């Protein structure tokens, strides 16, 4: 490759990284926590920390009565019913309908799996924030809503793919660079080597996560755009062409199959129990239920069986439901992205790799600034690059502190449940802004990094203590219980916090340039010589 092309490629790599690198970092960091959405849900809501009995209580009549009470007999457009699982040990239902004035209404309810009593719906908070901030930045409605946020996250995936591609091409000696860690050289070289080594070893994962993230993010906007172009704006026509025409009610009221019977209906191949049912045209002769099972061995989110809502017999064959190769590939995207296909250890691996990608991105932006502060690159003043460095450090190091802070808010929150998510958001951004302010006031990126790492670790270590104090459930006693997921969250926080404190302690407190390193080495040599001289007895 000629030099000019190499330089252009390198420019694209560094500009893609520096313009959107911080957003890539935010998406990667928040995504690492979003992986544990189910576990954190159990940690945040003590009502979920119960073991489900072998045979949960029957719920069909309670559900039918609840639907009738909510809709007042109006035709339900969409209904969902969840059976109790390890992570959600309760029955859950939601119904959507239109009233006489054609206003869209919806309701949701959950019931204790063992006693059948209603459990109050807890306002969305910690787990919802962690997941949705990763998925769509919790983008506000006044700026276009979640679709805009999701598309932005998709664009981040595109930028990451571009950065990976240009990064691979920029590094011409991949085999040598994959093993080169010059730990005794300058700070910049250490960062550079770490950026390359971690980036190269995690490459297959990063390519996969960037591609699946881009797909999940931009699919909403792309499908609308392509529909707008290919179908001249008719999105419904596109949906119908891909998913088939929607089913219509027959207008004849019939008795539905019992949900308690369906709970026992195991998957014919995997033998697993269903975990969710989606109901269309409920109560009508044309009712159809989609029965969802946990994916058995294939790389897909769920296995689905379609049945007649009245008889429970399998639905008539529908060509739109035949699983094509394209469908198998697109169904594999979500489990691949969230690591839901291989148990908790796979999620830990995803967490480590996701965090490493966040670190690679952060190192990239740090190197970019360092080169301009202490190298020949860049044409702005030192003050400008110093400020940019403080900003970068504040954003990078403030985010972990903010993430830990919302765990505390979750346990200490005393307001209305409906406002929990708003309080979570305010706390998150306020603490993040404080981190940024601290970095700007401290004016020393090395010390700020070190101190905020220790604060993050300290906060993480305090989370099990807070949980024990507020809920009375201390993890050592709870870890062997029938439902120990929340206790494992405490353990993970304790271990992760200790490691973060250690990382902060080991992080350099100042920048050592060549002269400073030489002076330090000379001082150490002199001290050793003095010690040796003192040890020799005077003749």
């Amino acid at each position, binding site marked *: 490759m000629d030099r000019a092309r190499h330089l252009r490629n390198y420019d694209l790599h560094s500009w893609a990284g520096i313009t959107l690198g911080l957003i890539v970092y935010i998406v990667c960091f928040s995504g690492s926590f979003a992986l544990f959405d189910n576990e954190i849900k159990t940690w945040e809501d003590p009502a979920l920390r119960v073991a489900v009995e072998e045979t949960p209580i029957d719920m069909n009549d309670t559900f039918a009565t609840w639907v009738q009470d909510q809709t007042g007999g109006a035709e339900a457009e969409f209904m969902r019913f969840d059976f109790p699982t390890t992570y959600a040990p309760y029955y859950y239902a939601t119904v959507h309908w239109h009233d006489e004035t054609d206003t869209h209404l919806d309701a949701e309810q959950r019931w204790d799996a063992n006693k059948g009593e209603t459990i109050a719906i807890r306002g969305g908070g910690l787990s919802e924030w962690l997941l949705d901030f990763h998925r769509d930045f919790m983008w506000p409605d006044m700026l276009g809503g979640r679709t805009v946020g999701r598309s932005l996250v998709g664009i981040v995936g595109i930028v990451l793919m571009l950065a990976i591609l240009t990064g691979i091409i920029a590094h011409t000696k991949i085999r040598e660079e994959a093993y080169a860690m010059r730990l005794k050289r300058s700070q910049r070289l250490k960062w550079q080597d770490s950026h390359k080594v971690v980036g190269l070893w995690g490459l297959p994962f990063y390519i996969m996560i960037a591609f699946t993230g881009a797909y999940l993010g931009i699919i909403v906007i792309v499908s609308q755009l392509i529909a707008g172009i*290919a179908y001249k704006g008719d999105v419904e026509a596109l949906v119908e*062409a891909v998913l088939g025409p929607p089913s219509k009610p027959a207008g004849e009221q019939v008795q539905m199959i019992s949900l308690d019977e369906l709970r026992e209906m195991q998957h014919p191949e995997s033998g697993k129990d269903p975990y969710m049912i989606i109901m269309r045209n409920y109560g009508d002769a044309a009712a159809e239920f989609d029965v969802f099972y946990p994916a058995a061995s294939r790389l897909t989110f769920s296995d689905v069986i379609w049945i007649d809502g009245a008889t429970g017999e399998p639905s008539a064959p529908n060509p739109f439901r035949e699983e094509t190769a394209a469908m198998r590939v697109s169904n594999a995207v979500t489990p691949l992205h969230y690591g839901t296909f291989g148990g908790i250890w796979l999620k830990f691996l995803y967490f480590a790799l996701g965090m490493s990608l966040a670190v690679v991105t952060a190192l990239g932006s740090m190197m970019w600034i360092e080169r301009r502060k202490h190298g020949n690159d860049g044409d702005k003043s030192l003050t400008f690059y110093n400020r940019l460095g403080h900003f970068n450090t504040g954003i990078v190091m403030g985010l972990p502190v903010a993430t830990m802070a919302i765990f505390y808010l979750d346990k200490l929150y005393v307001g209305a449940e409906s406002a929990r998510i708003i309080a979570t958001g305010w706390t998150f951004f306020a603490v993040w802004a404080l981190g940024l302010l601290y970095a700007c006031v401290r004016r020393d990126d090395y010390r700020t990094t070190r101190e905020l790492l220790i604060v993050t670790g300290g906060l993480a270590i305090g989370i099990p203590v807070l949980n024990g104090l507020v809920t009375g459930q201390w993890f050592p006693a709870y870890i062997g219980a029938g439902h120990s997921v929340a206790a494992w969250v405490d353990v993970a926080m304790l271990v992760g916090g200790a490691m973060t404190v250690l990382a902060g302690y080991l992080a350099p407190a100042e920048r050592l340039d060549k002269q400073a390193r030489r002076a330090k080495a000379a001082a150490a040599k002199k001290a050793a010589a003095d010690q040796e001289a003192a040890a020799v007895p005077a003749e």
Partner: protein
Amino acid sequence: MGMFGLALAFLAAVGLGVALTKWMQHRPRWMGFAAFLVMLGSIIVASVLGFPGSDLGRALFTFGLVTALTAWTVHAPRLTSVILWSLVASMFLSAALMLTLPIEFRALALWMALAVSLIWVAFQFWCYWDKHGWRVASGLIVVSMISGYIVFTTPPPA
């Protein structure tokens, strides 16, 4: 004419504008001025065709937008291409492929949804790989225009 035809007309106007402006840089001044007039005229025609009747405000806004876009593309062809034209070209190309490839539409739509991000990144990469920035910009506009023409003249699948 419809929104789609309007988009095609604007693409044509910007494409023509970029090509003419590039060409007039190396020609006598009067030819450059003539090229500029042609570009201006094409954008005006596109704006008027797009918003006939009394919708002068929207036509003027569109005229300003397209002119600014053309100027920006001429000034920084790589940057505009990596930010905008690669996206436009990948969308139009995906839609054109969806309508023309002899594969069942339902499967093809899913494949294209998967492929569009790869096409987008490939176009972005081309922006900095090619030696000539303006060649990328005009290439992407041409791809968009050809794809747009295919989509415009092909009926949606049943």
